[in-house]
């Protein structure tokens, strides 16, 4: 699904901030991406999303060499990936419902065709009463849940979540983790970037991708 071979990244003429990354993410797998703050977890996610280009090495995404992909092909691949950003990245002028429905809307689907699906997902993540609310009036936890719902609504083949439980209380964090595990069981590969050891301990079978010293260490 995702394969990195000797991938390195540097900004301009600076030193490499990520070196010799060689790993793969197979279908229907669950992994935590962890490491100290500033180790490059978010940067690695951007490399997987192809929003950053590596300075060396080879990235293969869903069987396609990333260097050969044009913009439309990258867009098509991104539709298979759900992303939860650390800073949520909700559109402030859209309601919670509209934010969650956004990935379906950009695919040109009719609103009536996905309304029930979006409403049901919102209710499940506990935002059923906050559908009309704009992000400015949502709490950090509510924004987090809205961002997760937006990533899940397209039933992605790969889910990338950057600190998805960073702003929620432990019970909700557990629920969200269960959601990710269920999603994994139903066939989605999940990558959760976190340095919450408590969260990782709840699912000890998961692979660990540990970033440190600009390199990635994989613990299966």
């Amino acid at each position, binding site marked *: 699904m995702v394969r990195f071979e000797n991938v390195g990244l540097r900004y301009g003429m600076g030193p490499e901030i990520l070196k010799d990354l060689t790993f793969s993410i197979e279908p229907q797998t669950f992994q935590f991406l962890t490491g100290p703050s500033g180790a490059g977890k978010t940067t690695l996610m951007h490399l997987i999303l192809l929003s950053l280009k590596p300075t060396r090495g080879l990235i293969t995404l869903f069987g396609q060499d990333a260097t050969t992909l044009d913009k439309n092909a990258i867009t098509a691949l991104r539709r298979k990936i759900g992303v939860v950003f650390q800073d949520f990245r909700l559109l402030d002028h859209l*309601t919670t419902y509209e934010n969650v429905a956004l990935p379906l809307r950009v695919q040109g689907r009719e609103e009536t065709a996905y309304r029930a699906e979006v409403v049901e997902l919102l209710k499940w993540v506990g935002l059923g009463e906050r559908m009309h609310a704009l992000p400015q009036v949502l709490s950090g936890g509510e924004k987090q849940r809205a961002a997760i719902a937006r990533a899940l609504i397209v039933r992605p083949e790969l889910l990338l979540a950057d600190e998805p439980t960073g702003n929620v209380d432990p019970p909700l964090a557990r629920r969200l983790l269960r959601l990710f595990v*269920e999603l994994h069981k139903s066939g989605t590969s999940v990558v959760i970037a976190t340095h919450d050891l408590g969260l990782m301990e709840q699912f000890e079978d998961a692979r660990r991708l540990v970033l440190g010293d600009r390199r990635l260490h994989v613990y299966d």
Partner: protein
Amino acid sequence: MSEKPAPQVVRVDPTAAAAPATDTNELTLSRNAPLVPAASIASRSLVTVIAIMTFLSALAAGSGLLIAGASQDWQRSVASEMTVQIRPLAGHDLEDEVTKAAAIVRATEGVSSVEVYAKDASEKLLEPWLGTGLNLDELPVPRLIAVKTDPSHPPDLPALRQRLAAAIAGASVDDHQLWFAWLATMANTVVVIASLIFALVLVAMFLTVAFATRGAMAGNHEIIGILHFVGAEDRFIAREFQHHFLRLGLRGGTIGGLCAVASFLAAGLVRAHLQATPGGDELEALFGTFSLGFKGYATIVAISLSIAVATGAMSRAIVFRHLQKMG
């Protein structure tokens, strides 16, 4: 928060998804708000600029149409008139010559009416320059014959000139060609200037829209990034910007167009109020009745709509090109 069942929700049956929502909340749900935020200071400023530019271009176009219409009226009226002038010459009876000339003109095909100016009427024409109460008997005042012609079958002017010259020594025909050419040149110049102003206003407006589009893209950079991450194609994003600018263009175009229509209607009312005054007559001579007519108002509506559509299309092209360059 109490725990809920596991997330079957992410595997909702697609056939059930189309079922209509019945929740009261869902009925009042905001579902498809514009992705590019509509209300901002920059948007309001752009609407104002588009309204002003539409107003100016509609004024320029309307004025051009009015002057072109008035010029055609002048040309029609001048083209259907000519003047035969008989100069007094020694040894010739002026009255005889005038009668002869009038008979020749009347007999010419294409002439619809002939009016001979009597001696006192001819002398009266000089009053504005020479004043009243003067004895003009000693002055060689020429006599005039005003001739109206049939515009659809104009007379053969060279033949008429030849016949008059052969019969009357001091006769000449003025078909107002000089005046006609001068009027046409003036009217055409004014129409060209109005067209240039129209074109310049449009260019200025489109440059403003181009800057505003780039500004909107910079201001909505984060939105564009999010749309890319959730799988939006450049075409989709460009279309969203097009809708945004089309809305602004329609609002500005409508305001500007309505102001232009109101201005022409107001000018028509003022002209009607000034009718039969010297100033009013001058205005009417230059611009006609200030009545644009259906064609004129349709032109203003077309300008307003075209500006809105062009604004949307241009912003779409700029956004699309910019996104493609971003890679």
